[in-house]
């Protein structure tokens, strides 16, 4: 007599699909964070580094927190993670903008071979705020 085949539970298939989804999201977040760190190490200027930091950092951390939504149990933890997601998406651009403004006000020099394109340049006297830079 042939053994009775136990039908596969529908919950296991759903867990498998969820696991694959979470793995893809987590590795996507790791990819963006790696790109951001490599850009912050390799790029020549503080403005270029902030360009790499401001985008990749926000997207990578947002993806990793979104991937953790499907792993934590309970509604309370999910709400806390949602709060962290909103905080990350609001705090990171503000911090990037303030770092750039501070670097501009302090007169940090641009890197070599860079230029400023502005239509107001000929009308105003003097130069832009880009000074000698602080070492």
């Amino acid at each position: 007599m042939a053994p009775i085949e136990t039908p596969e539970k529908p919950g296991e298939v759903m867990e498998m699909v969820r696991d694959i989804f979470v793995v893809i999201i987590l590795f996507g977040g790791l990819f963006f964070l790696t790109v951001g760190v490599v850009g912050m190490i390799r790029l020549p200027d503080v403005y270029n580094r902030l360009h790499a930091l401001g985008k990749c950092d926000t997207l990578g951390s947002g993806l990793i927190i979104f991937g953790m939504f499907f792993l934590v149990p309970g509604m309370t933890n999910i709400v806390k993670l949602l709060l962290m997601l909103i905080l990350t998406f609001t705090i990171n651009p503000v911090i990037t903008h303030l770092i750039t403004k501070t670097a501009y006000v302090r007169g940090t020099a641009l890197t070599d071979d860079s230029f400023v394109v502005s239509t107001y340049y000929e009308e105003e006297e003097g130069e832009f705020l880009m000074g000698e830079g602080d070492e």
Partner: protein
Amino acid sequence: MINVTVNIVVFWLFVLGLASLYRAFKGPTATDRVAAMNMIVTMVVLYTIVFSFLNNQYFYIDVALVFSLAAFISTLCILKFLREGRLF
């Protein structure tokens, strides 16, 4: 599969935090160091969240929340000090 992935994520976040420590050590201006500090704070927050899943202690999410807010306020203070030369 999830456990292996989360372990890889924790290890790689640790490596990324160390790599951004290089910019904090070598950055020519002070704003470079602030940017590197911001990156390290992000890594530590993510590390704490993922670690809460690994350790089955979910109050670490609150720790990550408070750490993120405190790092935000401290970064604001450092930037204001760099811009104006005083805090208050």
